[in-house]
C-alpha cells in the first residue's frame, strides 16, 4: 500500500554517509557531483578481454585484498555508516557504539566469486563427486571451510554491522533489486513511525562487480557498450543512450523520530516525508507500457507526505540511461505531474556515478537531501543529443542553483519493485 495511513508523519534525518567511485565522504562526492565529474573508468579489477563492456564505476581506492563481493560490500557499508553516525552524534561516548534502534541493510545477493568457489572445490569435502568437488585436499583446514560458508551467506554482512554499531534487534538484509537502497530507508521510516524504535540505521551497499556479475547484466543487454571514453558512456535521457554503467558504492542514513532528535539536540538535515511503493506485474526486466506501477509509486509518496504533485520542486531520477527506463520514467512524470513535468527540474546522478545497483536508492536519497540543503541541483552530464521524445528539464551538463523545499527520489527495480521517497527541508 502506498500510504502509511494512521501512523504516518515526518521522520528526521540526522546523519548521512556516502562512498562512490567519485570518492569517500559527502564532501568529496558533492564537490565532484555538482562539478559534473564522472567516476566511470576502465575496469582493472579483472581481465577485460572478450567482454562487451569494459568500463565500470568500481570502487578501487580502498585497501582490500582480496576484493570479494562480501568483503567490499561490508567495507563500503561500514565506512558510510561511520560517516553517518558520526555526523548524527548519536553515540554518546567515545566508547562502545550503542545505536538506539534497528538496522536495515540493502545488500547485493552474496555468491562466491570464482577464486572462492575454486577454493571451496578443494576442501576435503564429505560430499559425493560433483562439479563442485575438484580435489579433496586434506591440507585445507576446517577453518577455511567455515570461513567460506560464513563469509558468503547473506546474513553475515548485516550481522557484523549490527555488532560494530550496536544496533538493536534482528538486522534486516533485503533486496528489491535497483530499489533496494530506498527500501532500506522505507523500512526504517515504517519502524520509527509505528514506534518500534526511536532511530534506525539504513544502509544501501554494493561492491559486487566481478566478471560474472558484469557478464550477466551484459547478457541482458542492459549495459552501455560505449567503452571508448568511459566518462561519456552513461548518458541518461539522451537520444543515443545505450544502457547503464555498473558501479559500486554505499550510503547510510541515520533516521530518527523528530522528537528523539530534538530532545538530544541533534541537527536535523532534512525529513523523509513520504514513501510510495508498487510492484509491476508485467515482466522481469521491463515495465508495463501503461506505466501504472511507477505512477502509483510516485503518487503514493506524494500523498503519504500530504503534498500535491505541484509541490515537488525537483526529482532525483532513477535515470539509468537504458532506453526503456528513461522513456518510462518520463512517461510516469507526465502522468503524475501533468504540465508541471515540462518545467520541473529532474536529473540523474547515474550520469556521473553509474548505477550502484543495490546501493543506488540510498546513495541518491543522500544526494537528494544535499540538493535540498545546499539549494544546488547536480547536473545530468553527457546530455549532448537530447531525446526529443523526452520533454524534460534534465539540468543538462551544469549544476543549477535553486531553492528546493520538496524533492522526490525514484528507484525502480528489475523484477518490478518500485520505491519513491519524498524528502523535505529541515526547519530554517
Amino acid at each position, binding site marked *: 500500500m502506498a500510504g502509511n495511513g494512521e*501512523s504516518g508523519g515526518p521522520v528526521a534525518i540526522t546523519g548521512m554517509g556516502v562512498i562512490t567511485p567519485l570518492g569517500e565522504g559527502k564532501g568529496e562526492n558533492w564537490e565532484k557531483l555538482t562539478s559534473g565529474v564522472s567516476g566511470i573508468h576502465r575496469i582493472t579489477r579483472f581481465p577485460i578481454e572478450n567482454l562487451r563492456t569494459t568500463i565500470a564505476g568500481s570502487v578501487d581506492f580502498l585497501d582490500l585484498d582480496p576484493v570479494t563481493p562480501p568483503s567490499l560490500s561490508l567495507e563500503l557499508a561500514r565506512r558510510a555508516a561511520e560517516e553517518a553516525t558520526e555526523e548524527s552524534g548519536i553515540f554518546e561516548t567515545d566508547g562502545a557504539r550503542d545505536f538506539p534502534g534497528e538496522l536495515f541493510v540493502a545488500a547485493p545477493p552474496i555468491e562466491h566469486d570464482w577464486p572462492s568457489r575454486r577454493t*571451496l572445490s578443494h576442501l576435503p569435502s564429505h560430499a559425493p563427486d560433483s*562439479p563442485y568437488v575438484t580435489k579433496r585436499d586434506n591440507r585445507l583446514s576446517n577453518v577455511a571451510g567455515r570461513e567460506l*560458508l560464513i563469509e558468503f551467506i547473506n546474513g553475515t554482512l548485516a*550481522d557484523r554491522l549490527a555488532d560494530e554499531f550496536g544496533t538493536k*534487534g*534482528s538486522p534486516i538484509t533485503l533486496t528489491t533489486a535497483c530499489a533496494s537502497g530506498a527500501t532500506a530507508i522505507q523500512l526504517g521510516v515504517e519502524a520509527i513511525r509505528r514506534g518500534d524504535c526511536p532511530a534506525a540505521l539504513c544502509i544501501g551497499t554494493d561492491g559486487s562487480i566481478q566478471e560474472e556479475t558484469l557478464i550477466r547484466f551484459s547478457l541482458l543487454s542492459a549495459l552501455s557498450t560505449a567503452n571508448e571514453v568511459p566518462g561519456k558512456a552513461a548518458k541518461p535521457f539522451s537520444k543515443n543512450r545505450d544502457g547503464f554503467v555498473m558501479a559500486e558504492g554505499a550510503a547510510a542514513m541515520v533516521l530518527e523520530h523528530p522528537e528523539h532528535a530534538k530532545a538530544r539536540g541533534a541537527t536535523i538535515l532534512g525529513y523523509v516525508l513520504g514513501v510510495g511503493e*508498487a510492484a509491476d506485474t508485467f515482466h522481469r526486466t521491463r515495465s508495463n507500457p501503461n506505466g501504472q506501477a511507477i505512477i502509483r509509486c510516485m503518487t503514493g509518496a506524494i500523498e503519504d507526505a500530504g503534498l500535491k504533485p505541484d509541490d515537488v520542486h525537483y526529482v532525483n531520477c532513477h535515470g539509468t540511461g537504458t532506453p526503456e527506463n528513461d522513456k518510462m520514467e518520463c512517461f510516469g512524470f507526465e502522468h503524475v505531474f501533468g504540465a508541471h513535468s515540462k518545467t520541473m527540474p529532474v536529473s540523474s546522478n547515474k550520469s556521473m556515478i553509474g548505477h550502484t545497483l543495490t546501493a543506488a536508492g540510498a546513495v541518491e536519497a543522500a544526494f537528494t537531501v544535499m540538493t535540498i540543503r545546499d539549494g544546488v541541483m547536480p547536473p545530468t552530464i553527457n546530455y549532448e543529443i537530447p531525446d526529443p521524445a523526452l520533454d524534460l528539464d534534465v539540468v543538462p551538463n551544469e549544476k543549477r542553483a535553486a531553492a528546493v523545499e520538496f524533492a522526490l527520489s525514484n528507484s525502480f527495480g528489475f*523484477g518490478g519493485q518500485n520505491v519513491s521517497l519524498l524528502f523535505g527541508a529541515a526547519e530554517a
Partner: protein
Amino acid sequence: MAHDVVLTGYGLLCAAGETPEAWWRALSSSDPLHACVDSETYKPFHVYPIVDYDLTAQVPKKGDQRAMGPMMQYGAYACGLALEAAGIKGDEELLGRIELIGAAGGGERDWEVDANVLDLLEREAEPGAELNRMLSDDLRPTLFLAQLPNLFGGNISIVHGVAGATRTFMGEESAGMDAFRVAFERARAGQGELFLVGAAFNANRPDLHVMYDGGGLLLTEPLTPVWDRPDAGICLGSAGAFFVLETADHAAARGVRPLAKVKAVASDRCRRAPGAAAENAWRQLDAVWSELRGGALAVMSGACGSGALAREEHELLTRLVDSGVDCAVRGTAAALGHTVEASFLANTVLGVSCLERGTVFPPMAASDPLEQRMADGNIEQVLVTGWGAFRGEGMALLEVAD
C-alpha cells in the same frame, strides 16, 4: 490502536507433500525420520527433496516456469496455494494492494557451466580471457534472473498478479522470521491490512552441500531426532511455505473466516556466546507469558539439527515445561529436513494445521521427554520457534481462531 492479526490461508510444498493430509500422513507414520528422506543422491548426506508436484497447476505459463529455478518455483507454487485458500487468487482488487514480504537466498547455479569453469581454473594459470569468453557464451540470461533473490518476489508478482509491493529479505533463517515479524508489526500498527508472507529453499544443489559441509554443519551419520545429533547435524530439506496475513477487521469485512490468530511474532540476534540464544528466546517468551492460556501448547521447533544449538533449545524448552507450561514439542526438521529461510514459515503453517485439527501429530523423538506428550484434541495455542544455524532467534505465538 493495535489491530488484531489473523492468518486466512496457507500453502506448504515440502518433502511430505502439499496438502495437510499428506503432511500429517508423513508426520504420523511409524518412522517419520525416514518417511520422506533421500539418503542416496548426496550420500553420505541426507536430503529431503520436494515431492513430485504439478507446477502447471499454479504456474501455467511455460515462459514463467522457465524464468524460475526450483527455489522460486516452490515459492510461486506455495504462494498460489495460499492465495487460493484465502480466497484472493484472481481477485484483482485484493491483488492490487496485497503486499508481499518474502525470504529467499538465491544463487541457483548452472552445474554444467560451473563444471567447465572450475575445470578451466584448474588447467590455466591465467584463465581471465577464456573465463570471460566461456561465461559470455555459456551463461543463459534467464539463469541470472533465476539467481536474483529479489525475483523471488518479482516472479510471484508476475505469476499471481501481486501488485501492492514485493520485498524480499535475505539472511538465512532470520530472513523468514523477520518477514513474518515485519508483516505482523505493520498490520498490527495499521501500516497495511493485507500481506503475503513466504519463503522457499531448494536443497537439491550439490554446491550447497559442499558449502554447508565445508562449514562443518551437515550430518553424515545415520538419522536421529534433532535433539541428539553432533554439531555437524543438519540435513537440508526443500520447501516453499506461504501464508496470507491480514487484520481481523479486514478479514471480517471481506467475509473470510480466519484459520488462526497471530498473538506475537519476535526475532532477535546475539553473538551466540553459550547460553545467549536461550536468553534471547526466554526474553521473547517472557514478553508473551500473559498470553499463554494455560492449556496444552504445541511447540513447532525450528531446531536445525546442529548439536550444541539443539541442546540449548532443548534446555530452554525444558525450562518452559518446568515453569508449568504444558508443552508438546516437535522437532520437525527430523522429518522434513532443515529448510533454512523457509523453516520458520513452514513450521508456522504446520502449527496452523495443528490448530485446525485441535491436536498435534506424533513425536519425531519417541524417547524424548519433551516430545513424548501427545496432546489429544485440546491444542489451542502453538509456539513456533526459530533458531538459525549461525544467528537469529525468533518465535511466534498462534492461537485457535474464534
